[in-house]
């Protein structure tokens, strides 16, 4: 996919020139960095003075060659932040609104039942959309976009309007969409955990300018920290496999991709055994000696690989089979005498391990 555009905006000029090819690409940047404008430009909903947009080898827009396909002819599925369901139509009519567009229908056809199954909205079909919850509305909007047989799915912060617990319930649906349908996705977000949970590739923009692109683990989060220490979070996100759960103890054992097992809060066996666990860098304690008589469910031994000091904060990468990123104050680093190569113990509360 080729994206090259220049759009003058109120405070800055959106100036992007990237080529990428990934199943799910995340456009990541703080609010007001021009992300929605970029999606609108791709969908043809906003005029671009200069640029070129190409999806799957098909030119949608080219100022040089005078090509400007109208939105209905671009084959783009757009899920906007607020869902934008048609309030006067039932869920069924919303979902089927773009379904008879067959311009882009190929052999890999998408059936309505399949979409309803994946998003678990089959029971909502005859409801008026005004009677849907926020999470349901987003799933319906997603189904509507998928069923229009798009070449590319644009997702504009689809979780931003939802509260945290709801967010964590919708993310798995997005991952299932990624797995079930061969539709490339462009996912706009300012939440680093969503990037890790979904994206294979991330394009960072800031104030309309391209900063960097790459695999999420390669460029996040340390880069983001330097880019924006104000609203930064340090996130550890691991692919994991469910092993066993004990409802009485309120615990579940999972195996991380690196082979290490950790304990997380109780969850019944999920439909798919693979899941993702998030541990905030601020929720991990470091100890220089093996702790005893401690309530935390996880104590992992590891070695410090890297210490980066950013504006009074220390970002420490600890190799405990997988790399864990921990954030401490510089004072704590000095008090404990932490340095690269030193052996440490990571202490992580069970409750600090969140399944995405």
């Amino acid at each position, binding site marked *: 996919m080729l994206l090259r555009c220049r759009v003058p905006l109120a405070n800055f000029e959106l100036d992007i020139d990237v080529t990428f090819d990934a199943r799910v690409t995340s456009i990541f940047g703080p609010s007001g960095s021009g992300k929605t404008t970029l999606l609108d430009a791709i*969908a*043809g*909903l906003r005029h671009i003075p200069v640029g070129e947009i190409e999806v799957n080898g098909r030119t949608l827009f080219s100022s040089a060659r005078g090509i400007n396909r*109208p*939105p*209905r*002819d*671009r084959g*783009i*599925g*757009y899920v*906007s932040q*607020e869902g*934008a369901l*048609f*309030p*006067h139509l039932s869920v069924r009519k919303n979902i089927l*609104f*773009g379904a008879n*567009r067959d*311009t882009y229908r190929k052999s890999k056809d998408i059936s309505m039942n399949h979409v309803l199954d994946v998003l678990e909205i089959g029971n909502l079909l005859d409801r008026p959309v*005004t009677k849907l919850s926020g999470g349901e509305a987003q799933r319906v909007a997603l189904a*509507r*976009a998928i069923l*229009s047989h798009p070449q590319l799915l644009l997702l504009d912060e689809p979780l931003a309007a939802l509260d945290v617990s709801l967010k964590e319930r919708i993310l798995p649906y997005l991952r299932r969409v990624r797995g079930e349908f061969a539709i490339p996705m462009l996912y706009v977000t300012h939440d680093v955990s969503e990037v890790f949970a979904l994206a294979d590739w991330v394009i960072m923009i800031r104030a309309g300018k391209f900063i960097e692109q790459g695999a999420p683990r390669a460029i996040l989060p340390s880069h983001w920290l330097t880019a924006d220490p104000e609203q930064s979070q340090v996130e550890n996100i691991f692919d994991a496999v469910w092993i066993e759960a004990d409802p009485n103890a309120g615990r579940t054992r999972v195996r991380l991709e690196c082979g290490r097992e950790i304990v997380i809060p109780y969850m019944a066996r999920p439909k798919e055994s693979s899941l993702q666990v998030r541990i905030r860098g601020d929720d991990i304690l470091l100890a220089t000696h093996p702790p005893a008589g401690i309530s935390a469910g996880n104590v992992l031994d590891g070695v410090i690989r890297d210490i980066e000091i950013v504006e009074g904060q220390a970002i420490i990468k600890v190799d405990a089979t997988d790399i864990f990123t921990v954030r401490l104050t510089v004072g704590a680093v000095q008090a404990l005498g932490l340095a690269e190569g030193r052996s440490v113990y990571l202490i992580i509360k069970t409750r600090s391990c969140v399944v995405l």
Partner: protein
Amino acid sequence: MISFLETWHITLFSLAVGLASTLAILPFGIVLAWLFARKEWPLKSVAETIVLLPLVMPPVSTGLILLKIFGRRSPIGQWLYDRGIEIVFNWKGVLVAMAVMSFPLLVRSVRTSFADVNPRLEQIAATLGASGWRIFFVITIPLAYKGIIAGALLAFSRALGEFGATILLAGNIPGQTQTLSLAIFNFVQTGNDPAAYRLLAITVLLAFTFVWCSEWLLRSGKKS
């Protein structure tokens, strides 16, 4: 006094011509309101002002302009006359006067209801492959229909109350161009107060009903 049959005739004539004028301006009003609400075009503000003029100009002045436009001595009036259509001093004059005078109210009301439709919905419909026509008829109109009906009711009420432009363009000919307002004026002039009051009661009742319906629609439209 006034006979029941005469009362009935005047009321029915007013309602019929008012309805015809409202139906006649409805398609134009909808299209123009949409152009005002959704499109940018050169001299748009001039066009908006011209459309609103009959709302603020003395109705008699508007009537005089219409008389000049449709009178037989004007090119338009002559052209129509050659084709067997005469507007001045018959029911068609009443219709034209009502239409012109109520048009601004229709456009204003419908325009507001179009502006209230979230343009994002129309954009999303376009990305889903819908043509401009489909978006207009399946998304925009259904979402704005309450405002459209309210605007039509308002225009209809205004048409029923029309006086100044009508009397200039169509005259006040009993049984031919006499609407409720013209008849009331006539009866007051000739000292037939009981007849005037009877018609007055009818106009109050009609106006109240239509304006109440229109307001109710607009309110329920806002809520949903």
